[in-house]
């Protein structure tokens, strides 16, 4: 019997405005996630990698593939996950 290991998955984490500054000015990070991970898991992985993300709100607004999403929205390899600071358009 063979076992098939799940392929590694990564998401593109996009950062804007004050959240980008927390990451030292980088607007995009690649974050490895376990198979079947949701937004909350990807955020936990990002927090482990960027210490300054401890200053992010516990539940930041997020978008997955350019649509507002929730912390329990599931992620797939190659998804675009954006962290959205409070908005100020107009």
């Amino acid at each position, binding site marked *: 019997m063979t076992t098939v290991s799940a392929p590694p998955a990564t998401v593109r984490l996009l950062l804007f405005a004050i959240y980008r500054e927390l990451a030292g000015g980088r607007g995009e990070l690649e974050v490895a996630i376990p198979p079947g991970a949701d937004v909350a898991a990807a955020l936990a992985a990002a927090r482990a990698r960027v210490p300054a993300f401890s200053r992010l709100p516990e539940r930041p607004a997020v978008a997955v593939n350019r649509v507002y999403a929730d912390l329990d929205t599931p992620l797939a390899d190659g998804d675009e996950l*954006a962290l959205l600071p409070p908005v100020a*358009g107009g």
Partner: protein
Amino acid sequence: MAAGGRIVRARITEDAIDVDDVLRAVASPSHGAALLFLGVVRDHNEGRAVRGIRYEAYREMAEAELRRIAGETMGAAPALVALVHRVGELAVGDVSLAVAVSTPHRADSYALSRDILEAIKRRLPVWKRELYADGGESWVGGVEPDAAATGRRA
């Protein structure tokens, strides 16, 4: 004439907004009311002299959000909508946002314009950094996109 509204423009741009062009985009022989709202950079905020604003957008999502906002706001009434938000560094007096709507009668245009603007304020992924006359600058505290506005669960 088809019922329901149509969005004829939804754009994030670094270029100066041609407001006449945005207004012309919603012209229709069956629409007797056309309304243009402009957001303009002002020279002060909370008592501090402002020389400009640097706008930043999540461009791809913002253009999609403009379309979603228009679609959810228009309802069944005939309407044409054109929305343009500028990004980059703007000076006092520059137009940051143009909301053009047209409808057969004026009441629908006023209501639609206001509803679209309020939705933009609540959920368009755009941020701004104020540039002060004394040389300082800071991010402007914004609005947390709320579940009702975005369809997120609470």
